């Protein structure tokens, strides 16, 4: 087995289909009598839905059915870690970001579905829009979800932080902020669904990165057993974490059950930007101590992750980010706190690196500033603090194998031909 594959170039099983255009992505699937869905989305980032008037849209020829929350009282919230995301926002309920779904339009063509969505009239009672997590954390800030705007708090402690700072000859304290990022997989959220009346099974051709979790989440939301939800993973046009969360799935399932016809839903790129997950923007306050010989003694991290309107993987991403607060550098005394905070921004979830890339911006900046102020070559400063076999991470994990950071730094210096800072 190993001799056959390791160190060899292996062709992807579907690569021929991909270069000839034969590979079937969800949008490439067409069934007879298929209907097209389009979602009416929130009209304000934080508001109570007071009125939803479908009458004009329903009269449009070619509209088959419009589903709103009133039609599906049995359907439950969904979500990767916490079930806080509504399938459809009902009258008297809150929309919490511009991506919240208010109604599912089902029509004979994409064109009619698009037109009908624009004919839906919405009345809302506006609430304060919280776009800054610091505002969300204020005592008097309105609550986005019932249990408070701070969704999760995680702590980290290793060694003795006080002692660590006491040992330091230099302490640098700075604040760093990172921005939202969209994964922009080249294919947007897309899927096709079919409901089989006889067996009661819903089959979905939708990209997902968590096949079984997605299946379970759809099932619990619809109140069906998992056997009734069948997901066929088509070819995926990129994901990068963005396709961990539910997108078109439940809406497709509902429309398929309701109409007993094949249904298709493709987001536009704008919709994908507005409605589907992002990389968490972080506010990071880092306080780092080092000796004048250039050894790190203490690192304190204060992290706020803006998870937007819904949890998604937020609590995991943000606290994982905090665990990486020192980067690949040895620090005996570490203390941290991380808050995952709700706002009315588009929700943030998993994205390549899962919180660590945000932290890298902070710790590598700290390392440069320290090196500069200590008058030490920043590469040397990194090398003498870098992890090796036997190092322990901020959360106390002892590294026993595969620690390549020193070699990586040396090789990077070598390849870049870097000769030290210009004076």
């Amino acid at each position: 087995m190993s001799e056959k594959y390791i160190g060899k170039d292996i062709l992807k099983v579907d690569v021929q289909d991909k270069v000839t255009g034969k590979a079937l992505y969800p949008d490439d699937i067409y069934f007879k009598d298929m209907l097209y869905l389009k979602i009416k989305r929130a009209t304000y980032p934080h508001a109570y839905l007071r009125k939803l008037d479908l009458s004009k849209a329903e009269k449009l020829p070619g509209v088959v059915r419009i589903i709103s929350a009133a039609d599906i009282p049995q359907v439950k919230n969904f979500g990767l870690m916490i079930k806080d995301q509504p399938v459809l926002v009902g009258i008297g309920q809150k929309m919490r970001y511009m991506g919240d779904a208010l109604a599912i339009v089902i029509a004979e063509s994409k064109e009619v579905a698009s037109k009908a969505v624009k004919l839906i009239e919405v009345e809302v009672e506006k609430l304060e829009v919280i776009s800054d997590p610091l505002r969300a954390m204020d005592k008097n800030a309105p609550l986005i979800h019932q249990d408070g705007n701070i969704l999760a708090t995680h702590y980290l402690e290793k060694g003795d932080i006080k002692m660590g700072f006491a040992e330091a000859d230099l302490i640098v304290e700075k604040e760093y902020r990172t921005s939202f990022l969209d994964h922009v997989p080249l294919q947007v959220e897309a899927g096709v669904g079919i409901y089989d009346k006889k067996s009661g099974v819903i089959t979905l051709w939708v990209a997902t990165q968590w096949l079984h979790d997605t299946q379970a989440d759809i099932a619990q939301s619809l109140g069906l057993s998992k056997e009734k939800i069948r997901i066929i993973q088509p070819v995926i046009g990129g994901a990068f974490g963005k396709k961990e969360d539910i997108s078109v799935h439940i809406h497709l399932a509902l429309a398929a059950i309701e109409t007993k016809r094949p249904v298709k839903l493709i987001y536009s790129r704008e919709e994908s930007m507005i409605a589907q997950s992002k990389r968490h923007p972080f506010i990071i306050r880092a306080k780092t101590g080092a000796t004048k010989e250039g050894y790190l003694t203490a690192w304190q991290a204060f992290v706020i992750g803006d998870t937007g309107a819904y949890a998604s993987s937020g609590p995991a991403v943000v606290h994982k980010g905090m665990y990486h607060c020192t980067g690949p550098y040895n620090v005996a005394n570490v203390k941290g706190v991380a808050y995952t905070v709700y706002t009315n921004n588009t929700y943030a979830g998993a994205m390549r690196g899962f919180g660590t890339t945000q932290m890298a911006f902070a710790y590598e900046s700290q390392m440069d500033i320290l090196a500069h102020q200590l008058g030490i070559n920043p590469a040397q400063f990194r090398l003498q603090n870098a992890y090796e076999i036997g190092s322990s991470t901020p959360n106390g994990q002892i590294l026993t194998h595969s620690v390549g950071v020193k070699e990586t730094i040396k090789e990077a210096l070598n390849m870049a031909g870097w000769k030290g800072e210009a004076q």
Partner: protein
Amino acid sequence: MTKLKIELMVNRKKRKIEITPSTRLIDLLRDDLQLTGTKEGCGKGECGACTVIMNGELVASCLVLAPQADGAVITTIEGLGSSDHLDPIQEAFIESGAVQCGFCTPGMILAARRLLEENPHPDEEEIKRGISGNLCRCTGYQKIIEAIKLSIARLSKSDSGKAK
């Protein structure tokens, strides 16, 4: 309903078809002609996933009205090669590992094809410019550029072969 009859050559086949004028070329290709190798990634000319060759030029089929393609000669990815007879560029993409999710691949291969028709020996800068209308979110482009370099070698070999 006002329908319009148009006639075009797609992948060397004459196609006559009735459409409403506000049909985009991408919809004509995907929905009416079942050529779903042409992908839609943005619908606004930004990503190049919908790239086809029209009258010898690279175009974004999401920004062309179908009637604008009346009388045109069009090549889509399906017209390039089949699984049994891959085009040298398709082969090079496979061998260089230039395909990951594959969503950009049809457009990217057509951009490469057009580039090499116009300029059989592009340098790296010219390659980059040739594919500058095609985004790839997976590969980081390096392997795509390698694949195009490999194609250059393959194509010039097969040309000199033919000349003899």
